[in-house]
């Protein structure tokens, strides 16, 4: 590595001082004069039409500034990072437990809760689609439109079908990974207010301020330069704060009340409605020569993406590209199908489908090592990406391929700090 004047050293991070002093302002720490508190009335059923929604008792409660449903939205009521399929407030039907139906702004947090308790709703419940398999059946209820297929992808490289003949060993396994939560320690929070120029200001815990700005502008039907989103100091994200959380609801309430409105989600609400990690099933067949060289990989990947798209199209785009792992393989096929269900919405979570793919490709490498009586490190070294490798999209890697060094340096460090553990990897 080159000698740098500044890089590759340790400097105190630019935000460390305010964080150790306790002065860093997270979204919940903001207070403004005349500020209201906001809250969301959410569905407690997973799939239903709303037959009746009565907001009047909540509106009549003293100290309640306003109670709004979707009819109050001046602009667009559909948002989402890739597909605009999620409403700010439900207008046609509920698609998951926790869908936002109405919002309340009141003088205190206690009054917000009282008002939410006064909202009455009648549902006409629909069959809830709770599995990928049910989602794909012809007679299943459709969560959106006329199909539950959210996205499909197909990767094809080389000639997988002909390659099996040249394999000395073939391993076939089905891998499945589960649904997880980011559990950032700071629950979602934010506030919105109109400034003296009439610009809608939103301060929020977010990973995505420019996207948030565009969504708020669309919701309000104003130009993007009439909205300002400022990221508050943010208490972790891991992908879970890429989607809209409180930004739209706060802005809508601030628009109607002309007062600052703050929303701080409880841990339960935050976890209940923020995105989750996509659970995936990967049926994978992998072939190699007796020397351990990969010859072919064929994977069929399915996923229950939940009620809204969120980042599913990004996850399904990434996982197939990574399905072989950091290894050379001349013949690859991956077919992926993601479906809508009425389950919690899955979205971005640290790795975008690559952790799931890694469970599969590393499981297959270990299965091959076992079948061939090889050291799992050795089989990885035999197949490792290097400068000049071609990945299954046909892209040649021309620089910065340090994989072999990670293998060697990890092995050497393990020999030093956990020699018995390393020894255990050797085939019996």
């Amino acid at each position, binding site marked *: 590595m080159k000698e740098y004047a500044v890089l590759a050293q340790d400097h105190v991070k630019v935000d460390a001082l305010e964080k150790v002093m306790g002065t860093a302002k997270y979204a919940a720490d903001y207070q403004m004069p005349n500020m209201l508190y906001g809250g969301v009335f959410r569905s407690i059923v997973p799939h239903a039409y709303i037959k009746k929604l009565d907001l009047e008792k909540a509106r009549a409660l003293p100290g309640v500034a306003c109670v709004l449903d979707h009819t109050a939205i001046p602009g667009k009521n559909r948002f989402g990072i890739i597909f605009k399929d999620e409403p700010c407030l439900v207008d046609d039907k509920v698609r998951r437990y926790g869908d936002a139906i109405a919002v309340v702004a009141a003088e205190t947090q206690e009054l917000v809760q009282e008002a939410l308790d006064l909202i009455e709703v009648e549902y006409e419940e629909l069959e809830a689609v709770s599995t990928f398999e049910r989602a794909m059946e012809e007679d299943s209820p459709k969560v959106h439109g006329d199909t539950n297929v959210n996205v499909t992808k*197909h990767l*094809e490289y080389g000639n997988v079908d002909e390659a099996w003949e040249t394999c000395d060993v073939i391993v076939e396994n089905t891998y499945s990974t589960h649904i997880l939560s980011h559990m950032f320690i700071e629950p979602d929070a934010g506030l919105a207010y109109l400034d003296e120029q009439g610009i809608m200001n939103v301060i929020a815990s977010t990973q995505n301020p420019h996207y948030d700005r565009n969504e708020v502008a669309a919701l309000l039907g104003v130009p993007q330069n009439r909205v300002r989103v400022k990221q508050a100091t943010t208490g972790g994200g891991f992908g879970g704060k890429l989607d809209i959380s409180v930004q739209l609801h706060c802005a809508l309430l601030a628009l109607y009340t002309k007062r600052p409105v703050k929303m701080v989600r409880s841990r339960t609400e935050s976890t209940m409605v923020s995105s989750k990690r996509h659970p995936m099933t990967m049926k994978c067949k992998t072939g190699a020569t007796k020397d351990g060289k990969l010859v072919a990989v064929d994977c069929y990947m399915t996923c229950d993406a939940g009620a809204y798209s969120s980042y599913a199209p990004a996850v399904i785009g990434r996982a197939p590209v990574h399905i072989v792992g950091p290894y050379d393989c001349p013949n690859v096929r991956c077919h992926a199908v993601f479906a809508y269900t009425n389950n919690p919405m899955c979205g971005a979570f640290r790795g975008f489908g690559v952790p799931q793919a890694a469970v599969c490709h590393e499981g297959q490498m270990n299965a091959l090592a076992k079948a061939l009586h090889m050291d799992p*490190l050795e089989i990885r070294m035999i197949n490792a990406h290097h400068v000049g490798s071609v990945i299954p999209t046909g892209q040649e890697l021309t620089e910065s391929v340090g994989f072999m060094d990670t293998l060697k340096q990890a092995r050497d460090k393990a020999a030093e700090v956990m020699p018995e553990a390393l020894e255990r990897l050797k085939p019996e």
Partner: protein
Amino acid sequence: MKRRGTGVGCMFYGVGNTGLPNPAAAFVQVLGDTSVHVTVGAADIGQGSSTMAASVAAETLGLNYEDIHVVWADTMYAPEGGATSASRQTFITGNAVKNACTQALGELKRTASEELNVPEEDLIFRDREIYSGKDDSIRMTYPALMAAMGKKGRLAVGAGYYNPKTTYLDPKDMSGVPYELYSYATCILEVEVDTDTGEVTLLKAVSAHDVGTPIGIKMVEGQIEGGTAMGTGFVISEKIDIDPKTLAIKNPTLSKYIIETSMDVPVVYPIVVSSEGEAGPFGAKGVGEPALIPSIPATVAAINDALGTDFTSTPIFPADIVKAWKEREAAAK
């Protein structure tokens, strides 16, 4: 009975969005006293993108880290940063900062060249000084340069952006260039499994990550240590439970969704591996997500190694382990 096992997990990770444009931008101004404003759209969620921006700006401009002040993620002032996702900010916002600083350097180089009588291409900006690469006795301080800039009515300002060199992928077979660069990692992890209780103790993890050029060593190590905690927890303690009727999350709290404490995490030995490349700023690549990934398959493999099982599904909870061990024992008899 307590049994130990070792697992290996590797990964590669394409940095940035898959086969899509995903630019980010930065603004910079070197002020008269050599302090600097850098403004980026990138949201810093604690991973350190603002520290990265300060470091890249200082390195590019030849100033000290302490000279840089970063404003971030305020759409009123900051240009598009794109999402803080896909481990992309070091690569993309980092390049944007470098490009903005390079633009600001244009006037700085012109002025220094005039003052020192050295061709622009021979000038080196480093450690708050400007000198000739051919004869380092010919030099001036940064404050002197800024004074000369002031006299000539020149400003050191720059705006830059970067969009990774990718292509859209062919919808038929996904062929194309999905990412401009890739990070790599290997994790070797040891566990101890109690076959009676199913409890897994995470012992040690070595995790080596090719980050190209590390922006800050401890920042990279911190990502690896945190990622390893999250990755091992992925396998042995974390799971969202969904009520089959309401499809509500049954365990939305930290008492029912178990993330690792200081007592649960393994001893992590992070290894920062460098590699040569031109794509990232000074060769830097992302590590935010790569930090997590290899410990997941390594934990699965270590448990399988300890027990002689073939778990292919996550999570692997104590009840799963006890059941699998009993079945294995029964099969052996």
